[in-house]
């Protein structure tokens, strides 16, 4: 039993880490990661496998030139204008819809309490989806179940639905539509399981 649970935890940790990688700017090197993600997700969230396959195939079809994905990524997450799915928690969690809100500071403090801090080279905000996913990976990996549950419930779960909705309706590529679906699906399962 312990072994099974350990294996499941490893799968989830890897899924978090791989999903996190999908929220950085796309590059051809993502392909092997998606192959991995497909495998891991089949084990603990089989409903998401088809979506990851779509992502992998789309990346394969782009054969080295990922400009289309880069442009879609920019439209969705970084701008330069009218960002369709801002990847920051505070935009969804706070009334003002600002970045660098009080929740951003709270997330940063949560990292600190666990003993982590943002890489100073990293100019992005602590409540970026990729950072939060990566943090959840870390918490599972370190078996910090209580913090895992707390962080998921307080800081990521409340905004993942509106974020994924915005991403799904804004995306022009199947890649990001599927990423939205698999992210939402996996996290809602996790929320139920961890609650």
């Amino acid at each position, binding site marked *: 039993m312990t072994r099974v649970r350990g294996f499941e935890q*490893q799968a989830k940790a*890897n899924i978090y880490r791989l999903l996190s990688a999908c929220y950085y700017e796309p590059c051809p090197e993502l392909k092997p*990661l998606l192959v991995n993600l497909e495998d891991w997700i089949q084990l603990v969230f089989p409903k998401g496998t088809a979506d990851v396959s779509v992502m992998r195939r789309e990346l394969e079809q782009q054969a080295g030139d990922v400009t289309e994905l880069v442009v879609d990524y920019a439209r969705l997450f970084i701008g330069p204008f009218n960002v369709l799915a801002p990847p920051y928690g505070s935009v969804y969690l706070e009334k003002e819809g600002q970045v660098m809100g009080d929740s951003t500071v709270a997330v940063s403090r949560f990292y600190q309490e666990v003993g982590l801090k*943002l890489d100073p080279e990293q100019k992005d905000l*602590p409540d970026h989806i990729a950072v939060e996913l990566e943090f959840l990976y870390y918490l599972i990996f370190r078996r910090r179940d209580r913090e895992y549950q707390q962080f998921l419930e307080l800081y990521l779960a409340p905004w993942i639905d509106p974020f994924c909705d915005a991403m799904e309706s804004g995306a022009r590529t199947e890649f990001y539509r599927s990423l939205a679906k698999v992210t939402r699906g996996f996290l809602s399962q996790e929320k139920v399981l961890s609650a």
Partner: protein
Amino acid sequence: MDISRRQFVGGGLALGGAIAVGSSGSVLRGLGLGTKEANATPADAKEQITYSCCNPECNNCSLQVHVRNGKLVRISPNPNYFTKPCLRGRSRLQWNYHPDRLRYPFKRVGERGEGKWERISWDEALDTIAANLTKIRNEHGPEAVFFTAGAVMSVMPNAMQRRFANAFGKGVMTGTSGSLCCSSQAEASNASQGYRTAEIEAMAYSKFMICWGHNPAVTYIPHWRLINEAREKGARLVTIDPRFSETAAKSDQWISIKPGTDLAMAMAMIRIIIEENLYDEKFALERSNLPFLVNEETGKLLRQNEVMAGGSEEAFVVWDQATNGAADPDHALSPALEGSFTVNGIQVRTVFSRLRERVASYTPEHASEITGVPAQDIVDLAYAYATTKPAMINSGMSGAQRTSNGVYFVQSILNLAALTGNIGVRGGGVNDTAGFGHGTNKSINEPYPADWVGRIPVTKLGEYFLEDKPYPIKAVYWQGKGLGQVPNSNKVLEGLKKMDFVVVQEHFFGDAASVADIVLPVATLFERYDVMCASRSFYYHLMDKAIEPFMEAKSDTWIYTELAKRMGFGELFEKTEEEWIDEILEPTGLSVESLRKSGPVWIWSDAKLNRFGVKREKAPFYFFEDTPFNTPSGRFEFHTVRWENAGYEPMVNYKPPEECEETAPDLFAKYPLSLVANKIRTKVHSTYAIMPWLSEIYPKGWVTINDEDAKARGIKDGDMVEVFNDRGSVKVAAHVTPGIRKGVVAMPNGWWVTQGACSSVLSNDYTHPQSYGHCLNSTLVEVRRV
């Protein structure tokens, strides 16, 4: 993207998904394993306060910037300063952390204007810019790159661009002429009195105030308190505006006038004041050039060298009634104010007599026909203005001077103030809320002597770009400037589209960025150092850096410094921002350190700053009482030497505006409504256009239309309508009200072209070389339901 992370994650997982615990620091891109320092950071650091100053073309209020844990948490008023920031200044908090804030450098990947962008590194962005600018300079000369920056009243961003542009061409540059705000105001003030004044604090002492085409209740909110102070003491307030503006609503009287005809009304008031002997004869004789003699044949002022042996060409002549002959103005015993004389066979007449003749046809009835203002209102206003002292014409950078007649309109209100002896009087004069350029940044602006090979009028960017005037421009370096403020904005966008290369440096992705090749994210006011010394007040402010730049944003200074290094003139950019500011402040005896300690400093506290020759034993001083007129005659000039020399009409002179029934009947047949653009309380030009707090007040643009005009077009309040002319079309909601003149529509100004509702798309880009002013309020449009 970070290559090492990518390779590591990719490699590691491909090998079977084992997690490399030993290197977890580098596995995590966003997080590094916590260090002792991280854990030692106090959970709730104390709030820190630094001083700054709001830097748009506005009141330049002193701000307190509150920072906690490296995060901006509040903007509050500086309790030791005479104005308090309004809703705009306080919303700067949202500016900094706006979700649409530019976070990274971008390059265009699709067609120009197609909207496809890719994030790039700073190195790639700077290398691309340096390569393109160098190529264009080598092929077409440095003047083929046009540098332009927005209306930032503080020194650093624009001075740094100027320095870069200057060094880039070793002094050779393409310049601009005129301005979008106040060039007519400045030109007429310089010609009549020698410089502009900002008699802001004096408003509280006025007993009668005319807000002429000016709406300070929303445009100068921090000053509005001073106007109300005067009103509490009994001052009357009259507002002249085609629109029942917020200021009109608070006034004792609203005078509704046809746009562009204000000068005719002022000339009628001048006529009444002269005919009814309401003028100040002492001021006229002693401080103005009204008694000066003008050669009737040439229309020019008589010079002493024409009539006196050994006389100077620079000196003027009056008729001395004591000797019945020509005399030097300052030595005549009894100079004649009126009359025709013959001096050395030259037929001459005084400026005063010529002015009387110039305004003779402007009876109240005639002016009423032109302006649409009831004749009795003109008479009453003239009497009230001339018989109450001190009386101030508060015109700001009036909408009335943003017309094709703007220069002479400003001259006419200055004439009114001078005729009634209201100049040099606390609470009198013409308050144009002007700024003071101290010229202390010249050493920064010009490492090489400036050589302006050509100039482009700022209202004509589109036309000049498209028609290769004065020569083909190949690249544009566009910094922090709202394209939707430039009249005929669609043409400007077209002009930018034909460029070989466009760089835009901004906080947000605005109109110019939409057609750029490279877009650079810039640090905001609170993320860099700056200094205010050309402000709407007599104060110097340090704008201290309160927080680190957001994400990948960099200060303008950093960007130009990095570019200069790449382009081989890095040695001209070796200072830090604080060192540059110290250099700017050097002639004043102030420094970054001293201002940081003292807060805002009153300019006259240091004698070296006394550029206007204020008599220092007398404090507080007053302009033109304690300072001379800086004109060729040393007097207030009704017949201006400056314009006479330049070949322009030297005295007030009404002409119907460009684009009206009289001057453009064909256009009027198609577009019978006169468009004016009004400023609103949530914006300073196009600044603050997307702040959420402010957008709650005015989420969308609109057009204000008179109820009769609306009825004739089947338009009801709230209907979506199209406002259009040959320049463009804008769709907005209609605000139907009797609070605007029939035949006039008003659109609030400040929305961007890309947001829609941008009034400048329709605005007239006419300009005249006398001031190269902005004539947006001389525009014809039609409105229809959609």
